[in-house]
């Protein structure tokens, strides 16, 4: 009865939302920020460790819906190895994809399972929460919200 929801709840999102692979706080990190959507209750705390000017590792602690947790988990993989500016540019591409459902760039490959969120405008903020938290972390700010 929920077959039509597979556009949002892609199997990757269901799996990553349930069992994120990168959902741990890093023991060593040099940037971090909390994302908080107080209207709905999603929270994510993002930790970043750089090496030689690039993001070597991203971990997070999240309490939220499948969409926000999966978005954080996929983000952790997508930004690994990127410079800060590359990661922020990817975040912009990702935001466009969440709004249009379109995103053919190679850089978006890992994140493409999230494209279905475009059909659910009230859920775009869930997908964006880890990205605004990452931007805050890289800017040296402590907190962010995508509401």
């Amino acid at each position, binding site marked *: 009865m*929920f077959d039509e*929801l597979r556009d949002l709840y892609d199997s990757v999102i269901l799996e990553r939302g349930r069992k994120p692979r990168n959902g741990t706080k890093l023991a060593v990190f040099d940037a971090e920020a909390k994302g908080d959507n107080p209207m*709905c*209750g999603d929270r994510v705390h993002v930790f970043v460790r750089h090496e030689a000017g690039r993001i070597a590792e991203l971990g997070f602690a999240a*309490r939220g819906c*499948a969409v926000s947790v999966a978005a954080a988990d996929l983000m952790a993989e997508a930004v690994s190895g990127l410079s800060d500016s590359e990661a922020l540019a990817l975040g912009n591409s990702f935001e466009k994809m969440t709004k249009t459902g379109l995103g053919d760039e190679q850089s978006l490959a890992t994140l493409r399972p999230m494209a279905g969120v475009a059909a*659910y405008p009230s*859920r775009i903020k*869930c997908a964006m929460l880890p990205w605004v938290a990452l931007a805050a972390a890289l800017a040296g700010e402590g907190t962010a919200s995508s509401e």
Partner: protein
Amino acid sequence: MNAMSKSVASRTFDIEAIRADFPILAEKIRGKDLVFLDSGASAQKPVVVMEAMLHAMQHQYANVHRGLHWMSERTTEAYEAARDAAARLMNASDRREIVITHSSTEAFNLVAHSFGRGVLKPGQAVVVSQMEHHANIVPWQMLRDAHGIELRVAPITDAGELDMDGLETLLADGKVGLVSITHMSNVLGTYTPVERIVKLAHAYGAKVMLDGSQAIVHRRVDVQALDVDFYAWTGHKLYGPTGIGILYTKRELQEAMPPFMGGGDMISSVSFEHSSWAEAPHKFEAGTPPILEGIGLRAAIEYVEAIGYDAIAAHESQLTEHALARLSDIEGLTIVGRAQDRGGVISFTMDGAHAHDVATLLDRQGIAVRAGFHCAEPLIRRLGLDSTSRASFGVYTTMGEIDVLADTLERVRGFFG
């Protein structure tokens, strides 16, 4: 329309006839029947409310309280009839005890500002409970920070009931000037023991304000029998329009309370050196009031009165009992709050599925519920939760809709399970 009518013809409780009064309920959501279980956030409107507002705009509209012409006089009568209707609904002894605001949030801010700064003295305290809506928390925090008033928080039990011993402990030192507590939790559906709260608070010299936005939808409120000092509620949850709220204030308290906002309509005379205030309730009603909303709210009140609170409460009780039974049978679903005295607002969580995901899946089946904090973040935190899904009922909710909810939630569990 007879603006001054005092009585309302009663009708028998016929759920199909009631549903026919709410045309929006016939809407399809993506081809599926709308199952509207979000009345606790805002209720749907019966045709009589729409017609009353439309009639005013088509035939009888001008600004009020400036009655030098026919239209203004007639509109003033129609608008002021809302005050009479609200006074009758709550059994206020005097229509002047009814202040018309733009929301219940404004009512709390009015009391916090006017009673809080004008009557309470620095060093005194205000008590709220752990299960308050933000509208009954934030104005008191602002009062605390601006006026040196202590803010105390009465605990609730794990079942989601007010801890009366805890409340009494907070009152014991005699510093509490006001207890402001919900009559019915917008998250847990708990009815608070308002008679006991008022007696207890008064015994310690404190006034009492009740947040009635949820309760007055389901239960008869008698402010005289309760002996409550302030009682606030919003129009749009009682099948009326948005943009209007009601604040009952005991007559004897109004004199000492300064105005909240300044402007037109609340003065008796103005010069650049000095202005003097109009008498209550107009003292508290600055600016052009919610005229059309008042006309709509009066129609909503009469609609509720015609059905009658006995029938409304019986219907709510039947729905709530059925919903609690059906939802309790769903594996992995936890109903949040288990108060003995509770009504048609039910929050729940589901193992393995966040409230948003639940709400999105339900929405795809045409079922509208709310998910999140429900403007009560401290309560959600107190319960150790991040968010809940909430189904809330109205006079038009059916047993069949509860079954659709429960059946769909079974499938949601399968989807995420």
